[in-house]
């Protein structure tokens, strides 16, 4: 069982295989785990499709279904995954293209309140929002 931390959350991938620095994820689980969708054109996300550089090395077949070496793909993208502890937790670096910080639109997020109810910033469109970050420490 491998946990992948994305900028917006975390997913558990049951049939992921860790071999040293390599992380193989079944294609069927890929989009849910990483946000990347596999297609014959390569890996796609938002409006962007990235052809696989060396499909024979990045894809393999196990027990009748295919897996992608996601760690190698991330290295190819120039944003290597962080491999935590004994390889059971991996952390994904946010893609530079998706950063909205340089623009004027307030980046959206979803977080829980003290009672666990989830709120999105975007659900408050139509109101002015005074957004304050603070900490108990």
């Amino acid at each position, binding site marked *: 069982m491998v*946990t992948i*931390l994305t*900028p*917006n959350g*975390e997913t558990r991938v049951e049939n992921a295989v860790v071999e040293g620095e390599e992380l193989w994820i079944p294609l069927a689980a890929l989009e849910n785990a990483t946000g990347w969708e596999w297609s014959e054109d390569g890996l796609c996300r938002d409006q962007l499709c990235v052809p696989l550089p060396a499909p024979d090395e990045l894809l393999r077949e196990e027990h009748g279904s295919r897996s992608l070496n996601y760690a190698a793909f991330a290295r190819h993208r120039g*944003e290597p995954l*962080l491999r*935590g*502890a004994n390889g059971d*937790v991996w*952390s*994904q*670096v*946010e893609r*530079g293209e998706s*950063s*909205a*910080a*340089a623009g*004027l*639109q*307030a*980046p*959206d*997020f979803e*977080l*829980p*309140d*003290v009672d*666990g109810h989830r*709120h999105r*910033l*975007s659900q*408050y*469109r*139509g*109101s*002015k*929002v*005074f*957004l*304050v*970050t*603070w*900490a*108990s*420490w």
Partner: protein
Amino acid sequence: MTVACDSAGAEAAAPWIRRASPTHPSLIDRRHRVAELYNQVNVPTAVWIDEDGRIVRPPEPPGTFDGFRRMDRQSFKLPEDVRQEYSRRNRVYADALRDWAHRGEASEFALAAAQVEERQPAASPEARRAAACFRLGEYLAENGRFEEGAPWLEEAIRLRPESWNFFRQKLALGQPEAAGGPEFWRRVDELGQQAYYPPVRMPGLDG
């Protein structure tokens, strides 16, 4: 809307939230996602967002300033002139906020697009990598694996030394009071003449 950058979660933030009896959403952000999205390095930090989801004031201290550095570190007392300056600055900032609430884009405090762009903090590959390191360290700490997580928190601090959030959160995860303890003060003293909080570029405050 308040967002608690608190890796210890609701347990740490709830007592403060309950004391305030807020009528606004009070959210919990264990992995400091909002600080990453808005390129923030310290708390408290405020952003003003209009009805269309556009930023009209990018991240800035909500009036606060470096007065706390003159606090007596034994008694935690502030000199009277500092206390008055905090009151004054909070009043100026709150008045500006109210002016915007009533007058919208006609308020002088709502900035034009060019001014917002100029004041926006820059994103960077180091900051993105630091945030991913922080998430990993925080996940491990949150799941009872602080010793495995600590090196990742330290790497986040190394990649983003300007982030007081990372530095103080790591201290707090080790021991809650540590974020305001000797290690914190040592790092503050190392600033010398440099500011802890940036100037608040608003008439009546820092220009």
